[in-house]
């Protein structure tokens, strides 16, 4: 438990860094104007602050861009993790080893619906407070599985191959290479220099290769950029 909490706290640093993609007024794939903060629905807040005048009345002179992000729902989230981490469907998170987290246990909060048995004929329009918890669980589980597989594979590791997972502490360059690989695989882009700097600082606070690998994967995979388009 202690390990998990420290992992989460450390990961926040990286999440904040990668979330900057959603804050910049230009560039990035989901830029938002204004304050740059994210509301409970995952939408950037701030577009509504800018007002102009139409026909003598106070009105908004920009679209309500805070409502234009799209929630990446359960299936693209799942296939993205599978492709990004080289996992099969049955290697993703399961409840008690049997019920799939995405298709069954957390389906509703990940944006799906089950009509036949539950009579749930519509999906949620926006994420709920539990969506973040479910995303964290699914991403952490997937990352954990990949780390485990790569640790076992040793030199034949597929994803976490830039430093030994058993190493006490990887070099800054190794951390950057690994982070870049994860940005490519999970966010489909190059990391920015500031993001890599933050990651290196974060990695310096940890001592074990496998924990750094898991934290990087979790932070990048659960960042807002991977959940909203």
């Amino acid at each position, binding site marked *: 438990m202690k390990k998990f909490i420290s992992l989460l706290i450390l990961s926040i640093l990286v999440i904040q860094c990668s979330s900057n993609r959603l804050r910049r007024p230009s560039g990035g794939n989901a830029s938002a104007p204004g304050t740059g903060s994210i509301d409970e629905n995952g939408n950037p807040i701030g577009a509504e602050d800018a007002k102009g005048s139409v026909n003598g009345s106070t009105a*908004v002179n920009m679209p309500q861009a805070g409502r*234009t992000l799209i929630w990446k729902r359960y*299936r693209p989230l799942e296939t993205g993790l599978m492709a990004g981490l080289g996992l099969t469907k049955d290697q993703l998170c399961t409840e008690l080893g049997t019920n799939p987290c995405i298709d069954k246990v957390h389906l509703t909060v990940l944006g799906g619906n089950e009509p036949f048995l539950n009579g749930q004929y519509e999906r949620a329009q926006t994420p709920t407070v539990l969506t973040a918890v479910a995303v964290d669980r699914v991403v952490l589980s997937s990352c954990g599985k990949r780390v485990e597989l790569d640790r076992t594979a040793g030199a034949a590791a597929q994803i976490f191959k830039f430093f030994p997972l058993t190493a006490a502490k990887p070099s800054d360059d190794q951390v950057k290479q690994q982070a870049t690989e994860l940005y490519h695989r999970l966010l489909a882009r190059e990391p920015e220099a500031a993001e890599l700097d933050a990651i290196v600082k974060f990695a310096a606070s940890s001592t074990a290769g496998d924990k750094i690998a898991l934290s990087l994967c979790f932070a990048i995979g659960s960042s807002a950029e991977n959940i909203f388009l």
Partner: protein
Amino acid sequence: MNLPIRLQWWLLLCFIAGPLEATTISTEIFCQKYPKSLGCETKQASCNICHTAAPSLNPYGDDISKNLTGNIDVMLLETLDKVEGLDSDADGVKNLDEILNAGAPGNKAVKPEVKVQLTYDPAQAFKRVKSIYCGQTASFDEMNTLKAATDPKALVHAELSKCLDTAYWKNEALQRLADKKVQPLAAVGFGGNVVIADYRYDYRLFSYIMSGDRDARELLSAQYHIDVNGNKVDGVIAREEAAQIGQRIVIGGGQPLAVNRRAGMMTTQWFLAFYTMFSVLPRNTASQVYREYLGMDIAKGEGLMPVANEPKDVDNRKVGQPACAVCHSTLDPLAYSFSTYVGIETVQAFLFNSNGTYRANRSTYEAQGQIMGQPVPDLLAWAEKARNSEAFKKNIAHMMFSQALSREPMAHEKAEFDALWQNLATDAYSVNKMLHRFVDTLAFGGRQP
């Protein structure tokens, strides 16, 4: 029964007070005063102007209610004047400005239409296409290819074409879009404990028509079905599972309705059995088609087009009372055409698979039906009016817009949204072609420069 004093007073007031709630007259008054308001384009003011979901009021409706001093049909004009200067939804825009400029005075999320500056971002559009229509995440290599492309939009369209042909789109995404229309229930569907019909046909038919450049109007006209292998099947289809009454009860299955009585999704055995059930006048069936295929929910007061001298109250349900007649003067004539189609039967169904079949003598008022102000002799004519209406086109566009973006079109997107449904006929009612237009819009791929 001991009710709290306040509740007793409230109930008493409900009975003795004049109409404080909106009627069709109220919406007419509103639209006469504000003909340019959102919702008044077709003279059917949306209930959303005053309601969240009727009878619950939104902040604008709440302000009207607070300022109303008598019968709404008499005092509404005066009350509308009183609330013009307020900002009911506290979005910084006064009610009158919202009404005159395509905003919504009771909805903070909808503000007046203004000039907006958005730039189309092919990268954003590509990622969205992959996610929404392929159920996948765009890869690093794909994004690099897009970045290097001289015509990135062409790649977006190429990817969309691929996605619309995937199993994900046809067997998952489109089927989830059908859930609300079909409303399956495993316990009484194929393989359930009491089988009244097989809704798998409904899903297959919906997915088939909505993909592959087919004419979406077949949703309300198809006289064929699709088998489990994806092949078209003409003619009556026998039930796959023999009728039985024992541990399980099986009285339905297949598609027993005569081909010349079929009208797509609204005449499948499941649709007729599930929505009509044992009703003499299938109001529920008619209102479900009206809601899901024409986008008008009578329960919310939408699409009310009262027919003179209706309702006749053919099944003696006392729907002629003024409070009921508000909706039933539209709903009952809408349902007459369905009255000759069987819902659920028991012995007949067990013996002859009669659920969802046509029986001319089931009613005497089939030919008195009306839809959208036009008389129709039977359900086939009803379906023809429906599928060729503007409401049908708008509903298809709305369905695909909200499926992709999980929201309503915003005021500044109205022109783009209108172009989607207005071009549907030009595109031979192909949903695929409409989606190609859609991914080109700023609503889909636009962002702040």
